[in-house]
């Protein structure tokens, strides 16, 4: 593997390198590794008597077709596949054919979701009269349709579809037959947890048969993050659209508030879930993901926030005030930090050595652990003083779940930073832990109301 004195041969190698570099799945070090191989092959071939250009032809031929090679690389590194979908020419043709059908199906499902939320009105359940009914059922209007979209998109059979209908039916039945007391805590908890539990069913449809493979789950995590971002963008646009609608009709003396409140906002909110998902699916190969970019941006800021918060708490000695909102706030904070870790992991090249950002992540996780410990102590104190309530038990459970995740992540991060372990093990841990969240949410929906007497 030497540099060749044969000038034309060097030129050919550099042309080959430029050509290979155009493949987006092949990153710099991969190209370098392949070039090293090519050079050794060339050296061996020229030694055995082949002329430079002959040797070059043979060596490139032995390397194999670049299309096939890129495909293999993409399979080995699915996070790159996400950024730059590699499709063979015939797959590209096929996708052009189906994309028309897909647009129609997406439009149909989005309209169906928009209609679904208006159906209860026919039975006299108005949006501004039966708020809790809508709150309990909100995920049931759109998530089944979203699941249907992914079942269609992944070409799943009817049997699988029927199996995935089960959780939705169960959710719908439980959410509506439980005799919740008016404004009860268990009802609010069910409202908050049902969408999380049902998201697992969407996940099954999304990954098709790859639920037990880590790239499959990681893709679902990426999809969820991107959908959240697209959804916010669509909501912003929807807000502008609504404002203009109101303003223009106001100008001719018509109050269009009913149109916005009863139709535009609820129907748009439902349809946007489907359209947003379709956009994520369609664009996943085209643009850089936003979720990892936001992660990079906010990880340092949240690390500073947590450290300053802890320092202030130690300095002033003021304990955490255990109001309900505060507890939920801290739970959300931990969810966010788990999210930051998860999305940082989803975008990271697992083979890269530890860098500054990884140190920062560890600091973030450790400070979150300390905050979580303080919050747990506060909840435990509250429970021992005033007994169990649905809210406290839910907050306690969620805290414990997040604590376990963060503690083990911190351990794996520390090992990785000291080069004792690989980043892949951290990624695998995060992925293996994912089903815990929806399963806990399902428990809160199914077990809590009867357990606490629908209070």
């Amino acid at each position, binding site marked *: 593997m030497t540099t060749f004195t044969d000038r034309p041969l060097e030129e050919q190698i550099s042309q080959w390198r430029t050509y290979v570099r155009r493949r987006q799945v092949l990153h710099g*070090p*991969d190209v370098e590794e*392949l070039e090293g*191989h090519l050079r050794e092959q060339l050296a061996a071939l020229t030694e055995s008597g082949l002329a430079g250009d002959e040797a070059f032809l043979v060596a490139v031929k032995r390397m*194999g077709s*670049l299309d096939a*090679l890129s495909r293999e*690389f993409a399979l080995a*590194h699915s996070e790159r596949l996400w950024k730059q979908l590699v499709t063979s020419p015939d797959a590209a043709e096929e996708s052009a054919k189906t994309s028309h059908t897909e647009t129609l199906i997406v439009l149909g499902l989005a309209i169906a979701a928009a209609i679904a939320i208006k159906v209860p009105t026919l039975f006299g359940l108005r949006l501004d009269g039966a708020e809790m009914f809508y709150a309990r059922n909100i995920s049931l209007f759109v998530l089944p349709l979203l699941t249907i979209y992914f079942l269609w998109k992944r070409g799943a059979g009817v049997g699988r579809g029927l199996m995935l209908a089960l959780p939705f039916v169960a959710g719908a039945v439980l959410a509506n037959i439980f005799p919740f007391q008016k404004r009860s805590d268990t009802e609010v908890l069910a409202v908050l947890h049902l969408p999380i539990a049902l998201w697992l069913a969407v996940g099954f449809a999304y990954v098709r048969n790859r639920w037990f493979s880590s790239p499959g789950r990681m893709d679902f995590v990426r999809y969820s993050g991107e959908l959240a971002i697209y959804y916010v963008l669509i909501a912003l646009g929807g807000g502008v659209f609504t404002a203009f609608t109101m303003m223009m009709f106001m100008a001719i003396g018509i109050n269009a508030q009913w149109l916005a409140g009863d139709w535009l906002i609820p129907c748009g909110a439902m349809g946007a879930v489907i359209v947003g998902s379709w956009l994520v699916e369609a664009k996943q190969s085209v643009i850089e993901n936003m979720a990892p970019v936001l992660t990079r941006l906010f990880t340092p800021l949240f690390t500073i926030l947590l450290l300053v918060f802890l320092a202030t708490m130690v300095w002033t000695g003021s304990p955490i005030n255990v109001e309900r909102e505060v507890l939920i706030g801290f739970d959300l904070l931990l969810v966010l930090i788990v999210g930051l870790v998860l999305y940082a992991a989803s975008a990271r090249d697992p083979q890269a050595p530890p860098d500054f950002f990884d140190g920062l992540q560890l600091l973030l996780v450790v400070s979150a652990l300390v905050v979580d410990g303080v919050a747990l102590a506060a909840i435990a104190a509250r429970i021992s003083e005033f007994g169990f309530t649905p809210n406290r038990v839910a907050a306690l459970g969620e805290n414990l779940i997040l604590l376990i995740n963060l503690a083990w992540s911190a351990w794996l991060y520390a090992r990785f930073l000291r080069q004792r372990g690989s980043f892949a093990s951290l990624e695998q841990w995060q992925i293996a832990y994912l089903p815990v969240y929806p399963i806990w949410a399902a428990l809160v929906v199914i077990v809590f109301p009867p357990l606490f007497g629908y209070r």
Partner: protein
Amino acid sequence: MDMSKDLVAASATPLVLAILAEGDSYGYAIIKRVIELSGGHIQWTDGMLYPVLHRLERQGHVAAKWSAAENGRRRKYYRITKTGRKLLAAQREQWHVVDGALRGIWMRARTT
């Protein structure tokens, strides 16, 4: 003799791991070793080795390190890890079973 694609793909992992179990190595040397071991019957498309190596690296069965080669360029060296050795042992047993079964039936075919 042209080996079927599936067989080549299936045997790639145990071959690579077994070669790395002999000692650390790098892409080009691994391919040469495969040719040598199989008497030239197993001919991989050279490039295809690298995705296999990267997948094994990602799964933690091998570890990789860039270091300088004799000629001043960088070269990526691969080393088998503990989990890699475990996987190799498991695969070895599986191949042993397949080998034994095929041998058994072909021996009988020859004697009858």
